[in-house]
């Protein structure tokens, strides 16, 4: 049997092989993979953007995830002074958990205007966010929005029947809890700071961050001990037509 040595997080055998199986990967080229590359290369060839622009945005996108928002919430739960900064200067508070909203261009991206408001839940008031316009979302802190959040069905119905829509996600709010729906717009981004749940006394920031999932910062779920991931959510089709912006009335089918 070959000797092994440790490389921190994995072992190598002395003969250069790996003792563990390689992570599975998709070993076929799909039409969609080809299309993505073709569109990108054609856009670069036509001068719509540069390869360097694309690399910068790819690296920025790749680094985004809800983990940053989770750290912000967990830190706010354990550090009252930091919690004040979250509300007073959320962009500075973001930097303290490693997120600079001015990246990657020096003024953010065209989809991430540098204006954030953190909404504090209490036992009496619950917040949920939406973007009825399109899919505005605090990407620097939460990563890319889930597709259900982008769907016209969610955007249309949440603002009309918020309690019912939350119930569909499994969140049943008592009638005495006030529910506020915050609609993002072209220049403002919102994130929910949920209530720290019971049963978490003495937890470290890292432990707390594990239960602050993406859905709890959107407001469609509540954090609780043992709940460390979000389940899949269905995407419903809109029953009425969706028209892209600018369509003149007489042109509507």
């Amino acid at each position, binding site marked *: 049997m070959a000797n092994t040595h440790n490389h921190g997080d994995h072992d190598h055998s002395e003969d250069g092989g790996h003792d563990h199986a390689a992570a599975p990967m998709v070993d076929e080229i799909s039409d969609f993979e080809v299309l993505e590359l073709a*569109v990108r290369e054609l856009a670069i060839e036509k001068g719509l953007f540069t390869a360097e622009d694309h690399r910068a945005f790819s690296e920025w996108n790749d680094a985004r995830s809800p983990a940053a928002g989770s750290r912000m919430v967990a830190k706010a739960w354990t550090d009252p002074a930091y919690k004040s900064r979250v509300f007073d200067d959320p962009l500075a508070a973001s930097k303290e958990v490693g997120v600079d909203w001015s990246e990657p261009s020096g003024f953010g991206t065209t989809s991430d205007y540098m204006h954030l408001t953190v909404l504090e839940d209490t036992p009496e008031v619950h917040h949920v966010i939406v973007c009825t316009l*399109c899919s505005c979302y605090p990407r620097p802190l939460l990563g890319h929005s889930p597709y259900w959040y982008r769907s016209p069905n969610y955007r249309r119905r949440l603002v009309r029947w918020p309690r019912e829509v939350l119930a569909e996600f499994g969140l049943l709010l008592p009638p005495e809890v006030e529910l506020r729906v915050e609609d993002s717009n072209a220049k403002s981004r919102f994130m929910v700071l949920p209530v720290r749940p019971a049963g978490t006394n003495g937890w470290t920031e890292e432990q707390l961050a594990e239960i602050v999932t993406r859905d709890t910062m959107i407001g469609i779920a509540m954090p609780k001990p043992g709940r460390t991931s979000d389940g899949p959510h269905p995407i419903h089709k809109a029953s009425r037509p969706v028209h892209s912006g600018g369509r*003149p009335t007489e042109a509507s089918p």
Partner: protein
Amino acid sequence: MSGSTVGVQEQAEGHFVDLSRVTLLDSLGSEDQTWDKLAPRWCVTQPEPPWKVCLDATCDALSAGGALDSLERRHAEDELGETLYSEIPNPERQLVSLAHIMLSRGLMTEEELARHIRTVRARLEAV
């Protein structure tokens, strides 16, 4: 754009999507090539394909460079996602919609895209 028109094209305003079918895009990707079919077939657990990050970067770069505004793209995505491409799951739907919008806006032609698709596939399959 080619194929039969199932919607309305209004060139005068220019800020909404052409709902004509695109033969090239319709010919792409049988259902078993979407990530939700590919990933379990290869025992891969990542929820999204590796190219999703690049697709989002392309959208960001197009907007930053002024070629395709993000809000206009999102509106067009919404309409295409509920009509022509409603049967395609995401993120493939987002990708095909982006290509459709770029063709619709004249940012590229079907011939150019078809040529690049052939070139890219040949390159990826060269080994």
